């Protein structure tokens, strides 16, 4: 099966009524969590993971993947209409989107960004579809030593990018690895750190960690906040003019390239790609002074980059089995729950899921484009619901969800513990995504580490002497050093921003 045939096969799966329904539900939930500040895409996906246990593999992944890319659509609505970015990657959209709304061009900003995002998504899916298969064939030649190095690189990137404190980032990595080691030893079956609890022999359930860190703790911390009281810009005209569309062509193409390139890097986050796109647009513009005052290029470029980034971030997951973010780690866990292992063998072992999910990205983005206009007012109304009532509902659904997976009340207790822990760590600005990624990858890293040493007759230098793994590990060190130095230089050089 070549890429084109695979993609066509994927469409035959994604377009079944059942999977269309899952995509629709996922898009709606994604937009909802994108609209609600404080509840991110990770939380939305974590809350629906228990439901995926009861669904067929392709449907479950399509549902969760739709939440993943639907959140970006929701985030930009509140950014443009209310200057309240629902997601971190939507911050840039507010720079020019909100001024456009104040000038009576809210509808144009919404429609232009939706169209640009759609175009960016479709272009990115085409690249993903045609690049994933050859890359996965290439990845089949990698051994455990190279996989170990790649996973270490991914974790290092997360730490280097996600937090200004290297210590906190590394602590979260070590903590995540420790959590993954609780339970039976994968080789000998010895009980490790179970404190005599037989329920812990199978390890800490991933759902308890994810839902506690991202779902329940998010709503507990944002309880009592109200965002719906902010003034909402009126939507007078929806369709962009010919000039608006013409002005958006360049930013859309550049945004697709920028977003896709950033998305290929494991550990990178979409917010960086949107900022990079904004900077690019301002640099190439003949009228940079218009940026910040309602330049349509400042909306179209970053929104396209955001969407393209999300599609591209599937490349490392599909070809190497390495998730680049906490949200993709949740998706990886959903794959594993369904008995599908993302990585180089996925296209041959589970072609229905692999191609079905890729094709569903086009289908999902069509749904999002269609839903974009009629539901804007509805999302704004959702913001009027007091967050504490919504929070209680989310907690109750989380409790039922986590219980239903194993029929275990012990899992509910673990959820409570990780929710409390999540609240405290978030308040202290520990990067929780690093812990989750390390937790998800922990057993794979350990397995790769042990296999490598067995193959090398317990010679630890094997990781350095293998040319590919040695290069990757050296790259990891260089990236951590370089990226951790840049912010401090930046802080010294950064001009002061006037406060009102």
């Amino acid at each position, binding site marked *: 099966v070549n890429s084109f045939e695979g993609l066509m096969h994927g469409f035959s799966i994604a377009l079944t009524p059942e999977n269309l329904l899952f995509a629709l539900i996922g898009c709606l939930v994604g937009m909802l969590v994108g609209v609600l500040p404080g509840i*991110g895409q990770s939380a939305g996906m974590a809350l629906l993971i228990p439901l995926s246990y*009861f669904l067929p593999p392709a449907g479950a992944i399509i549902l969760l993947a739709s939440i993943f890319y639907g959140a970006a659509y929701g985030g930009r609505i509140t950014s443009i209409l209310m200057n309240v*970015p629902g997601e*971190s990657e939507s*911050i840039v959209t*507010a*720079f*020019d989107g*909100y*001024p456009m709304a104040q000038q009576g061009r809210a509808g144009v900003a919404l429609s232009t960004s939706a169209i640009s995002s759609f175009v960016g998504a479709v272009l990115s899916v085409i690249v993903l579809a045609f690049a994933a298969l050859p890359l996965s064939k290439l990845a089949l030649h990698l051994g455990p030593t190279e996989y170990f190095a790649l996973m270490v690189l991914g974790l290092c990137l997360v730490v280097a990018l*996600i937090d200004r404190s290297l*210590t906190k980032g*590394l*602590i979260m*990595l*070590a903590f995540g*690895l*420790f959590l993954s*080691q609780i339970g039976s030893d994968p*080789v*000998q079956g*010895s009980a*490790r*750190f179970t404190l005599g609890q037989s329920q812990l022999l199978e390890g800490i359930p991933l759902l308890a960690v994810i839902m506690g860190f991202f779902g329940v703790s998010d709503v*507990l911390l944002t*309880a*009592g906040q109200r965002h719906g009281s902010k003034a909402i810009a009126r939507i007078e005209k929806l369709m962009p003019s010919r000039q608006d569309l013409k002005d958006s062509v360049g930013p859309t193409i550049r945004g697709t390239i920028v977003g896709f390139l950033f998305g290929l890097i494991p550990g990178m986050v979409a*917010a*960086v790609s949107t900022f*990079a796109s*904004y900077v690019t647009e301002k640099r190439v513009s003949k009228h940079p002074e218009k940026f*910040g005052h309602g330049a349509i290029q400042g909306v179209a470029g970053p929104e396209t980059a955001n969407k393209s980034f999300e599609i591209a971030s599937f490349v490392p997951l599909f070809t190497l089995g390495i998730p680049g973010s906490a949200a993709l780690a949740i998706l990886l866990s959903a794959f594993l729950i369904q008995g599908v292992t993302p990585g180089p063998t996925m296209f041959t072992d589970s072609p229905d899921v692999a191609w079905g999910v890729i094709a569903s990205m086009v289908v999902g983005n069509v749904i999002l484009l269609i839903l974009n206009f009629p539901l804007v007012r509805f999302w704004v109304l959702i913001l009027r619901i*007091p967050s504490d*009532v919504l*929070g*209680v*509902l989310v*907690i109750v659904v989380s409790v*039922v969800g986590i219980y*239903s997976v194993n029929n275990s*009340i012990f899992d*509910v207790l673990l*959820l*409570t513990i990780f929710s409390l822990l999540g609240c*405290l*760590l978030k*308040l202290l*600005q520990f990067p929780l995504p690093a812990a989750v990624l390390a937790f998800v990858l922990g057993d794979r890293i*350990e397995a790769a580490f*042990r296999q490598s040493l*067995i193959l090398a007759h*317990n010679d630890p230098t094997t990781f350095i002497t293998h040319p590919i793994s040695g290069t990757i590990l050296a790259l990891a060190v260089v990236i951590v050093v370089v990226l951790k130095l840049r*912010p401090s230089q*930046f802080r010294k050089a*950064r*001009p*002061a*921003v*006037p*406060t009102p």
Partner: protein
Amino acid sequence: MEKLEKLENMPTHETSATLTPVEPSAEHREAGIKAVAELATMLVTTALGLWVTTESLHLGLHNALGIGPGMFPMVSGVALSVLGAIGSIVALAALRRHRHSSVTSGPGLLHNAAPAIGEGHDVDAVVSGAQEALAVAVDQEAETFTGVLWVRLALAIVLLVGFVTFMSYLGFVVGLSVLMLLMMLLVAKRGLVFSIILTIATAITIYYGFGVFLDVVLPGPTAPFLSWLNP
């Protein structure tokens, strides 16, 4: 007030030497609580690391197969203890600095950048923030210690623990309904009628959605007064 404004505009080293004590600002209190909490967390991390390391040694680092079950956890344990110790030293130094100063540093990057968002002020400064986009994003999601409604948070956790404790006695659906009702009343602070209606609607949805439609086993109550609920 005038004094406070003057104080806020002065560099730290100057204020501690020349000004009389004033009532600490909210930011100052926030920084103080955060510094103490950070130190406590780092100390707990160090202790956890030492425990993991000790346990790993008991598990065995090597065996006939090569690497023993304790080797990989030992790496985590050593990393946690060393990083926790480093973090403790840094947190202790920050706490001391905080106690010796009356003025806190200004708000973070996002707080500085926020006024520029969408208002057209100093977009250049915001654009130059691309290098720290992720740090800004993380800051945006971070809450403040003083901003958190601690009583509600504690209540929610206590209620969840209570649910775990009494679930087998009350049964899943009744236990969850009690949890939700109490959360609506005590955490969300809604009226009794609204809370009861929402709780009943949710309980019915959960019973039919999970218990009937998804066929999840929802344990019945063992409490004698609720025995009529068991089929």
